[in-house]
C-alpha cells in the first residue's frame, strides 16, 4: 500500500510522544519528573523513557570524576595564621613543556641566595588557548595540577580575565577530594606506596612494616597501569 512507510514512521513518533507523558504520570506521585534529582538520574540512565531533556540550570548533570575542563593548582589545606598555604607545585615545568597549545608559563621561585626554590613565583594559564586535553595533570610528578570540573566561567571581560594567575588557579586539596573522591584516594595510596618503597631502599627492615599495595579498584583510577 502506498504510504505504508509514512504511517509506520508516524507510529514511531507517536510512541515517543506518548512515552514522555506516561513517564510524567509515573513520576507524578514520586516528586515530579523535572527538577527532581532522582528522576533526572533515571532519565539520563539506560532506564530513561521519553524525552531526555535536562532543564539546565535548575537541573544539572552530574559530571564524572575524570571530566576535564580548566586546570587548577593544588595547595595544602589552609592552616589558621597562614598567608598562603603550601603549594604542591615545584615549578618543574613539565606541564608547560607538554601542553600542546603552549598555554602555561611559569616563573620559577628563587631563594635569596639565587638557588632555585621548589615553588612557583608566578604561574599563568591562558584559558582561551587551553584545549582541555589533561596532559598537564597526567604528567605532573607531584599531583599538583588537576583538571577542574567547573565549567560555568562566563564573565564580562574578554581579555585579561582569561589569563588565570597563580592566585586564581590555586585550590586546596580538600576541594580535589570533594570533586574526585576515588581518584584522590587512589593518588594518596600511590604516594604512600612510593614513600614506603623509598624508605625500603634506604635499608629499613622489611619485617617492621608490611608493604602497602594498591588495590585493584585504586589502580584503575590512576593513569597508566603498565608492566614495570
Amino acid at each position: 500500500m502506498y504510504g505504508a512507510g509514512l504511517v509506520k514512521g508516524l507510529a514511531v513518533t507517536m510512541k515517543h510522544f506518548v512515552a514522555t507523558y506516561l513517564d510524567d504520570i509515573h513520576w507524578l506521585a514520586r516528586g515530579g519528573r523535572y527538577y527532581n534529582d532522582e528522576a533526572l538520574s533515571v532519565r539520563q540512565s539506560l532506564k530513561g523513557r521519553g524525552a531526555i531533556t535536562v532543564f539546565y540550570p535548575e537541573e544539572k548533570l552530574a559530571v564524572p570524576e575524570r571530566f576535564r575542563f580548566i586546570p587548577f593548582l593544588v595547595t595544602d589545606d589552609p592552616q589558621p595564621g597562614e598567608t598562603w598555604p603550601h603549594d604542591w607545585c615545584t615549578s618543574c615545568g613539565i606541564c608547560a613543556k607538554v601542553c600542546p597549545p603552549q598555554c602555561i608559563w611559569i616563573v620559577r621561585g628563587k631563594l635569596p641566595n639565587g638557588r632555585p626554590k621548589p615553588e612557583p613565583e608566578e604561574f599563568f594559564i591562558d584559558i582561551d588557548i587551553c584545549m582541555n586535553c589533561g596532559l598537564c595533570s597526567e604528567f605532573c610528578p607531584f599531583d599538583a595540577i588537576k583538571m577542574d570540573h567547573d565549567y560555568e566561567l562566563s564573565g564580562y571581560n574578554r581579555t585579561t580575565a582569561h589569563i588565570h594567575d597563580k592566585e586564581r588557579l590555586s585550590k586546596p586539596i580538600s576541594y580535589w577530594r570533594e570533586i574526585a573522591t576515588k581518584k584522590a584516594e587512589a593518588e594518596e595510596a600511590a604516594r604512600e606506596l612510593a614513600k614506603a618503597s623509598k624508605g625500603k631502599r634506604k635499608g629499613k627492615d622489611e619485617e617492621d612494616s608490611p608493604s602497602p599495595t594498591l588495590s585493584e579498584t585504586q589502580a584503575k583510577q590512576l593513569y597508566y597501569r603498565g608492566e614495570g
Partner: protein
Amino acid sequence: MTDTTIEIQETSEGQPVPDDIDPVEDATVALNEKFPGEITPDSRERFSGLIVSPERLVEIAEYLRDDLGFNYLSSVTGVDLIEDNQMEVVYHTYSIQKGGGAIVLKVQVDRDDPVVPTLVPVWPGADFQEREIWDLFGIRFEGHPDLRRILMWEGFEGHPMRKDWKEPFFESEEKPFGSRWPGGNVSRAEEHNPFGKNVQYPSGWLPDGVEFEVDTELYAGVTVTRDATPGLKTDKVTVNLGPQHPSTHGVFRMVVTLDGETVVELKPVMGYLHRNHEKIGERNSFIMNIPYTDRLDYLCSMSNNHGYVLAVEKLLDATVPERAEWIRILMVELTRFVNHAWALGFLLNDLGALQTPMLYLYIERELVLDFFEATAGSRMMCNYMRFGGLAYDLPEMVRDQPTMEFLQELIHERLPKALEQLDTYITNNEIVRTRCIGVGVLTPEDAIAYSTAGPVLRASGVPYDVRKAEPYSYYDKLDFDTAVRYNGDIYDRYVIRIDEMWQSLRILRQVLPMLKETEGAPIISGKPQYAIRVKGGDAYGRVENPKGELGFYVTAKSRASNPDRYHVRAPSFINLTPLGHMLKGYKVADIVAVLGSIDIVLGEVDR
C-alpha cells in the same frame, strides 16, 4: 537481529584477505623486471618505498594499475627534504583484489623548481591531493587539469608547509617553544593602538583600493557560455552553495553551474576551516599531537587517535597489551555507531526530515558519549589512546551503574532497539525511497579510480575494508562481515551505514566477554613518558575510520622527539573528488542529498 525490513547482506565474498604470498613483494619483483635500473629502494634507515625518476613515473603507475593489480591510489603526500635540497612526493598504492600492504612510490626532485608529472590521467583521485601539494609545498604538477590553490585562499603568497616558511607566532627554530608571553606580560593587539584594531598590515600597503582577482580562475572554469535552444533564449547560471549554508555540513562551498534546475557542472571549494594541522604536527612532539588528532574528524575522536597511535607505534616498534587492544576496539566500534548515527541523522535532515530521526538516534549517542566521558574525561575530544596502550582503564561506574552492566545493556538491548526503530521509521519511507534510489550513482570502476574509501566505496560494490584487507589491532581474531551494496546510489550509501552498524554491534558482542576475561590486566606497555624518542623512519598507519580509510604518514629522524613530516590522509577530503562527477545531470535538490550521503566533516576536509 535479522528481523529487519531490509535484507542484511552478510557475505564477505570477494573481500580480499591477505594470504601467504605477499602481493607487495611479488609486485616489487615484477617492477624490477619490467623497469630494470629505474627502481631503487629507499636506502635511508627504516624508510620503505621505491624511488623512481619523474620521467618514468606515469609509465610505472600505469603498469602498476593495469598489469600488477595495484589499482587503488590511497594517498599522495609531499615531503620537504630541506637538508638534501630536494622535495619528495610519496604515493601509496594498494591492490583491491589482493588486499595486503602498499607499493610506495617516491619521486624526488630539486627543491628550487620542483616539477612532477601529474597522475590524474592514471588515477583521477589524485586531483585534490596534487592541488594540495602545489598549494602547501609549491611542487608543480605538469599536466594537471586545474592546478589552483585548494586549502589556502587564492591570493596567498608562499607555500606554508615548506620548512623555511615560519609560522607567524612560533618563529623560533627550537622546539618545544618557550613562553608565549615572556615574563607573563600578556597583551592583546587591540590595546596597542588607539583604534582598537587587531590587524597588522605590511608597511606601505593599504587594504582599501586593492582589487583582488579572487575566484576569476574558478568561475572561468565553471561558467559555460550562453547556449541557445531554437526559439528560446536560455542561459546557464553559476551559483554558490555555501560556505554559509545549513546543509553543507560545515563551511564548505560548491560552485554550481545550472541549466534551469539541472546541474551542468559542480566544483567543490574548501579551505574555510584550514587550521594548519600538519605544520602544528611538525612543531609539536609526538604526544602533544594526540589531542590535535581528536579535532580532525571531531565526531570520531577515538578512531583518529587510533590511527595516529598506530603510525607512531610502528616508528617505536611498540607492542600493545591485550586488554588495551580490546578496549581500543570497543571504543572504535562504539565510535562507528555514534558516527553513523550522526551521518544518517544529518542525511535525513538534508532530505527534509527536520531533525526528528536525528534526535531519536542521538538518544543512544548520548549514552555512548556518557560512557566516553566517564572513561576518557570528555565526550568528544577524548585524547584517550597513548603509544603502547591507553591512558586509563575503564571506569568503575557510568552514570550510577557499574560499567560492565552498562555496556552489557547498551550493546545487547539499547543499541539494537535503536537500529530496529530506525529501520521501521525511515528505510521504507516513500519519500526517502523516491529521493534516494537511483540518484548520485557512482560505478565501482569510478569509485576505485577516484580513490574513494569507506561506505562510499563499499556501497558501489567494492568490498574493500581496511580491517580485513590489512588487519590491525585484533580485527583478524574477530568474526564480522564486510558490508557491501551494489547500486552506488544515495539509498545504498544510507543502507550500508545501517549494515555497518549491525556489524559493529556484532563485533561489540564478541569484545565484551574478552573485556571481562582480561579484568585487571595492564593497559599500557612500558613506562609513561611525555617526551618519547622514536627510532626514526617513516610509517603509514591506516585505520578504517567510519568515514573511510584514515591514514597517517609520519616521518621522523632517528632519536627524534617530534615528527619531520606529518600528513593526514583524510577520507572526507578525498571522497569529495567525485562529487562533481556524481551530480552531472541531476537536480539542485539532489546536491545536498548526495553531499550528505558522502558524509564529510570539515575538520577532516580542511585539517
